[in-house]
C-alpha cells in the first residue's frame, strides 16, 4: 500500500491513470451502442485498419502520426458503417476483408520499408499496447483529455438520438430523424476512441475495451440509461484496477486491463444469473 501511494506521486503514473481512465470511459460509452447495433466487429476492424495506417505513418516517418491516423481511421469508420448497413453478409465479409487486409499490409509495409531493426518490438507494442500508456507525454495526455471531453459531451448531447437510432433505425428514419447523420457521428466517435485506445491497450485488444463493459452491464441492468452508466463505471474501475495491478506486479498494461474487464464480466454474469434465478 505504501508502495502504491509512492507510485501515485510519480507524474507519469498520474498521467497514465488520467489518460487510461478517460479512454476507458469513452470506449465504454459507445460500446453499448456498438454491441446493440451488432457493430462489435467494427471496433475490431477499425483497430486493424488503424494499425495499418500507423504502419504507413511509420514508413513515411511522420513526426506526428496522429495527423494521418486520425482522419484516415475516421474515413474507414464511415466506409465500414456504410457497408455494414447494406446486405448483411456482404457487409460482414467486407469488414473482415478490410480489417485483415489492413493488418497484413501494415505488417508487410513495416517489414519491407521500416528501417527499424526491432520489428517485433514495433509490432508487439502496437498490437498489445505494451507500456505506451505509462510513457505518454504531457502533450498527449492533454490531447487525450480534450478528445475525451469532446466524446463525452457529444455522447451526452446525442444520447437520445443515439438511443433512437440504435433501438429502431427504421422508425427513427420514418419519423424524420436524420439517422444517416447520427450513424456517421457514431462512426466518427468510434474512430476517435479507437485511435485513443491504441495507446492504452494496443490495437488487438481494443474491441475488448469496447465490448466487455457493455456486455457486463447488460447482465445486470435493463434500461438503456442504466446499462450505459453501469458500463461506464465498470470500464473506469477495470481500467484503474488494471493499470494499478500492472504497475504493482509488472504485468503488461493492456492485457492486464482486458483481463480485469473479463473478470468484471464474469462477476456480472454470475450476479446477473443469481438475480435472474431469484425471480
Amino acid at each position, binding site marked *: 500500500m505504501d508502495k502504491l501511494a509512492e507510485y501515485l506521486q510519480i507524474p507519469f503514473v498520474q498521467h497514465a491513470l488520467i489518460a487510461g481512465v478517460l479512454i476507458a470511459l469513452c470506449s465504454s460509452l459507445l460500446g453499448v451502442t456498438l454491441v*446493440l*447495433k*451488432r457493430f462489435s466487429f467494427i471496433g475490431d476492424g477499425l483497430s486493424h485498419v488503424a494499425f495499418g495506417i500507423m504502419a504507413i505513418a511509420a514508413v513515411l516517418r511522420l513526426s506526428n502520426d496522429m495527423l494521418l491516423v486520425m482522419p484516415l481511421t475516421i474515413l474507414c469508420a464511415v466506409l465500414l458503417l456504410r457497408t455494414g448497413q447494406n446486405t448483411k453478409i456482404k457487409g460482414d465479409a467486407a469488414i473482415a476483408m478490410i480489417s485483415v487486409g489492413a493488418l497484413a499490409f501494415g505488417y508487410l509495409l513495416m517489414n519491407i520499408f521500416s528501417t527499424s531493426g526491432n520489428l517485433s518490438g514495433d509490432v508487439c507494442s502496437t498490437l498489445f499496447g505494451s507500456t505506451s500508456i505509462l510513457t505518454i507525454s504531457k502533450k498527449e495526455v492533454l490531447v487525450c483529455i480534450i478528445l475525451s471531453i469532446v466524446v463525452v459531451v457529444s455522447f*451526452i*448531447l*446525442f*444520447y*437520445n*438520438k443515439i*438511443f*433512437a437510432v440504435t*433501438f*429502431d433505425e*427504421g*422508425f*427513427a*428514419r*420514418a*419519423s*424524420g*430523424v436524420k439517422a444517416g447523420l447520427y450513424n456517421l457521428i457514431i462512426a466518427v466517435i468510434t474512430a476517435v476512441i479507437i485511435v485513443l485506445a491504441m495507446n492504452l491497450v494496443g490495437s488487438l485488444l481494443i474491441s475488448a475495451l469496447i465490448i466487455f463493459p457493455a456486455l457486463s452491464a*447488460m447482465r445486470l*441492468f*435493463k*434500461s*438503456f*440509461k*442504466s*446499462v450505459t452508466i453501469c458500463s461506464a463505471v465498470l470500464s473506469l474501475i477495470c481500467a484503474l484496477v488494471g493499470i494499478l495491478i500492472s504497475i504493482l506486479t509488472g504485468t503488461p498494461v493492456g492485457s492486464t486491463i482486458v483481463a480485469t474487464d473479463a473478470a468484471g464480466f464474469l462477476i456480472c454474469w454470475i450476479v446477473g444469473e443469481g438475480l435472474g434465478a431469484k425471480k
Partner: protein
Amino acid sequence: MSLITVKNLSVGYEGKAVEEDISFEVGKGDYLCIVGENGSGKSTLMKTLLNLVESISGEILFGDGLKKNEIGYLPQQTQVQRDFPASVTEIVMSGFQARCGWRPFYTKEEKQEALAHMERLAILPLKDRCYRELSGGQQQRVLLARALCATQKLILLDEPVSGLDPKVTIEMYELIRELNKSGTTVIMITHDIEAALRYASHILHFGNRIFFGTREEYMESDEGSFFLQRMEVRKNG
C-alpha cells in the same frame, strides 16, 4: 384535400418493381387496410410512404398540412429489439425524436405527453419495466405509444397483430379503432381480411389486380365477394 394522394406509384427494391401502378387516396380520419398475399408489395409500399425506400416511378403527395415527419410508424418486430436493454419509458419517449431536431433533451411537456399516451394504452404501470420482458401484446402497445408520440395525425401499422394470441389480437384491433375514432388516420397492413372488413373504411387489395375503394365497394367487387363467399361457406359449413 386528402392527407396522402398516391398516383401511378411503382414500388420495389433496387429498381425492380414489386407492384406497379398503385393509386389511392387517404383522407383525414380514414382507416385504410392494405391486404394481399405475402410478397405482394404491401410492406414495400409502406416503406415507400415512409421514405425508407425510394419509389421507382409515380408520385406521393402529402396534403392537408401533413409534414413528412408527422407519420407514426409501428414496424414489424426486428431481431435487434428482442434483447435490447430499454425501459418502456425510454422507448416511448424516443418517438419525440423527430420533432426534437437538434434539441438534445426532451422537455417536461413531452414527458407529460408520453405518460398520457401510456395511460391511454394502459401501459402506464409498465413504464419502468424492461421492454424485452414484456408480452407480445404489451410490446406492441409500447410501440404504438411511441408512434403516437411521433404524431397523432397519421399512423402506419405493419402487421400489428402478427404473433399475438386471439384475445390480445382483438384488444389490439379495438385499441386501433379507438385511436381512429378520436381522429387519428390509420393505414394498416394485414393479411387478416376479416378484420379489414370489420374495421376499415377503405381497402387497398393487392392481388391479380389492384383494388382500391371503400369497404362497401370492396364487398361488391370480385375480390371482396370471392372472400365473402368463402366466409359464408365457412360459417355455414
